[in-house]
């Protein structure tokens, strides 16, 4: 049985406390009136002036676009900043456990022989899903109640034909993009995922206690996993349209669901590898050998390449076709958020491909940790870039207390929930007919 070490527990609480301070700072510093927002922007330009950029301020001051509509727009963007940072963190950590849940289901359906000894680690990580997904749902409800404007399409004025802000394109999408139906869909996805998470956990615990050779729970697990995977493939795709793509509500990409899935999957597998290495370093999981680590690192390597493939496919088709309503998405990202946009590709592709290419390096725990930290950070930035340009625009600020605070808070919560769940059951499953194969697994 695993015992949650005091040190790690304190660490997770410390992360949460620091995180809350950062989040609170973000909300306190968000402007509550348009006047305050103007002040903030003016200060930014003064700061620019100190760098010897006086011409730019003059030019900006004379600029005619400094009208009331623009002020209101910037005001909403600044107001969105702490909410958007919070949403990135909520989604990212929910996505980690959801990716692991899909990986776990695939292991069952494919009757994989190598991964049985890692099942409890995966179950520990997926234990975060009910909490993470419910927090996310609460966030969506708050958005629906207009507490924030992360989802700009939720503004009723946009679909009111008598309003000056009326948006015909959005009006045409109204039957799909409206708050009640959006929340009902979210509830369906989340309910389906949580159902499988609960069910699979119950079945493996029952399999632990079952008599030798009793495979009823094992067979039920296979059915439940297959059903979940069918549901997951559809719900994951729709979830990515609803929760991420709708933030840029005029834009669409048919590859989006796969793209989000690839990021989710590689981050999930990286999390499995990192938790495994951590537990091994603490003297647990003695039955996990370096061939298991090798396989996890192979998945990290392979799915990093897969993610890059989708990232590039989506970009290249849009770049080549050059259709205005599609390219705006990338123009905004190239113009406004260039450095993180390209840094992310280096972190998610160049770094893992060079670090994890050599077969022997895939067996070195510290290599896996280094590669894993960079990959997870890279995918955090990826989620940040999926959400932020649509909600905050050019007012984004990655290295700010609210972004770092949100990330740290949910990292702390994630660690706390996952490692608490790991203490609940023995770290080695029993009763699986392929257990022996997994224990003897070697390359």
């Amino acid at each position, binding site marked *: 049985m695993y015992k949650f070490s005091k040190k790690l527990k304190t660490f997770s609480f410390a992360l949460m406390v620091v995180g809350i301070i950062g989040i609170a700072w973000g909300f306190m510093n968000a402007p509550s009136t348009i006047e305050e927002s103007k002040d903030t922007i003016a200060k930014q330009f003064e700061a620019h002036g100190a760098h010897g950029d006086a011409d730019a301020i003059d030019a900006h001051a004379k600029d005619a676009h400094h009208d009331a509509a623009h002020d209101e727009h910037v005001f909403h963007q600044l107001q969105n900043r702490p909410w958007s940072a919070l949403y990135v963190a909520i989604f990212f950590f929910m996505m980690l456990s959801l990716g692991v849940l899909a990986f776990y289901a695939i292991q069952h359906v494919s009757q994989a022989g190598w991964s049985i000894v890692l099942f409890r680690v995966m179950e520990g990580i997926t234990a975060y899903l009910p909490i993470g997904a419910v927090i996310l749902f609460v966030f969506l409800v708050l958005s629906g109640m207009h507490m924030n404007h992360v989802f700009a399409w939720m503004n009723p004025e946009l679909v009111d034909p008598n309003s000056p802000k009326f948006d015909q394109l959005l009006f045409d999408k109204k039957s799909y993009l409206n708050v009640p139906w959006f929340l009902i869909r979210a509830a369906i996805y989340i309910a389906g995922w949580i159902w499988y998470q609960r069910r699979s956990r119950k079945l493996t615990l029952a399999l632990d206690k079952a008599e030798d050779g009793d495979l009823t729970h094992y067979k039920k697990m296979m059915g439940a996993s297959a059903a979940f995977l069918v549901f997951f493939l559809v719900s994951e795709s729709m979830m990515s349209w609803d929760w991420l793509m709708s933030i840029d509500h005029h834009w669409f990409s048919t590859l989006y669901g796969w793209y989000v899935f690839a990021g989710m999957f590689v981050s999930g597998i990286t999390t499995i590898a990192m938790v495994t290495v951590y537990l091994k370093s603490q003297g647990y999981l003695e039955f996990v050998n370096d061939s298991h680590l090798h396989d996890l690192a192979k998945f990290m390597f392979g799915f990093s390449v897969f993610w890059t493939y989708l990232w*590039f496919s989506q970009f*290249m088709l849009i770049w*080549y076709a050059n259709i205005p309503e599609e390219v705006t998405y990338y123009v905004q990202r190239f113009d406004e958020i260039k450095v993180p946009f390209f840094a992310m590709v280096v972190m998610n592709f160049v770094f893992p491909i060079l670090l994890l290419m050599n*077969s022997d390096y895939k067996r070195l725990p510290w290599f896996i940790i280094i590669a894993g930290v960079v990959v997870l950070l890279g995918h955090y930035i990826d989620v940040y870039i999926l959400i932020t340009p649509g909600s905050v625009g050019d007012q984004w600020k990655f290295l700010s207390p609210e972004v770092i605070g949100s990330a740290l808070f949910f990292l702390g919560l994630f660690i706390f929930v996952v490692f608490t769940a790991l203490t609940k059951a023995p770290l080695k499953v029993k009763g699986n007919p392929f257990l022996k194969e997994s224990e003897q697994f070697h*390359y």
Partner: protein
Amino acid sequence: MSSTSSTVIQAMYNDDDILMDAVKETRAAKYHIEEVYTPFPVHGLDKAMGLAPTKLAITAFMYGVLGLGFSIWMMNYMMIDNWPQDIGGKPSTSFIYSMPAFVPIMFEMTVFFAAHLMVITFYMRSRLWPFKEAENPDPRTTDDMFVMEVSVNGNEKELASFLEKTGAVEIKVTEKH
């Protein structure tokens, strides 16, 4: 008998698992394995025999980098330098602005160079070429038999009985040139 020839025992096995165990036992007993002939690649045999790790992977990486470099030069020469073309209004006078369109070609060239040059390197290192006479001692090693060749240093009898115990189905003493 020429000075380069040596006496070897060829022990024949009919199963790869038995062969793997035999290789491990023979090495543990400090006999010198000259070569093992198998009808198909046996996973982990190189490690069991104590062969040095292959450098083929490193050459593959270098060939890939070469292919990537070649494709960059090639696309720049074809599409920018020698015959700039206006395709879909994309700027054809700048490599970097046209680069996304070249990525699939860069990728394919990387794979093409790595794969083909690696195969050629493998053939050269294994001294394989068309019409080469086969080196395997028994035609059955291309069908369903495994042969382990162990060098003899005046311990013929002892070695033969040892190999028999490891599960060999046939044992032959022969001169090798």
